[in-house]
């Protein structure tokens, strides 16, 4: 798992790559909470290159969504290109719960 963070003036873009599972979830959660404490409330979660997502990974995504909503911001999601990972997000209806964007650039501009 690899995560690249891009800091924009009002938006944090987190680009994930590989697996987001129970082993990596605590590290990811800590990274994202670091930005919560800095006062960020708008996030783009780019899952384009995510190959595998489990429930612990889903929980990290929801924690970002909940935080942004509580702080008056919002979270946009870029769906994985891997069909199998996309299927999990459809199954859990994350494609309805999150605002889905085609790519990170469009997502950042939408704020």
């Amino acid at each position, binding site marked *: 798992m690899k995560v690249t963070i891009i800091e924009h003036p009002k938006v944090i873009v987190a680009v994930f790559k590989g697996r987001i*599972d129970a082993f990596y979830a605590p590290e990811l959660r800590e990274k994202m909470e670091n930005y919560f404490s800095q006062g960020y409330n708008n996030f783009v979660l780019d899952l384009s290159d995510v190959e*595998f997502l489990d*429930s612990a990974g889903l929980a990290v995504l929801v924690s970002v969504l909940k935080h942004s909503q509580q702080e008056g911001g919002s979270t946009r999601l870029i769906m994985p290109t891997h*069909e199998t990972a996309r299927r*999990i997000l459809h199954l859990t209806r994350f494609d309805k719960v999150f605002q889905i964007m085609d790519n990170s650039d469009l997502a950042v501009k939408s704020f």
Partner: protein
Amino acid sequence: MTSRQQERGSNTVRLEFPASLRFLSMVGACLNDLLLKTQSQEEIEPVSYDIQLAVQELCTNIVCHAYKDQPNDERICVTITFYNYPRRVTIELEDTGKIFDEMQVEEPNLEEGQIHGYGLFLIKSLMDEVIYTRNADRNSWYLVKNLEELVHPQS
């Protein structure tokens, strides 16, 4: 020995590993490799993903709940069996941790995202059969995934 026992014996693989989240990806890779013995990567990818995810969810539950607050030398046993008639794969997971109480697990509300509750939902959604039993001091999970819909099996 019955033909079913013979089939099971020749198509069964057992894994035993420490109950640690560090081994999750290893179990998934192992399952995928085993499934590749029966189908091509392209054919097996969706079903392999489902099985890997279901098994990974169960392993995570075992590590984080069944073995919570227990010594670090606990282990998980996974037995994978392929059957040809009808084509299916069964996975049995065993641990000696705390009893699983499904009444404690809330169904996820899919209309709004939530932090907990997706694990068992995913397992039940992705597998064709999920059976939990408690035998003496052991938890046993029995999962079935039918492979009938997959075509062109390799000989």
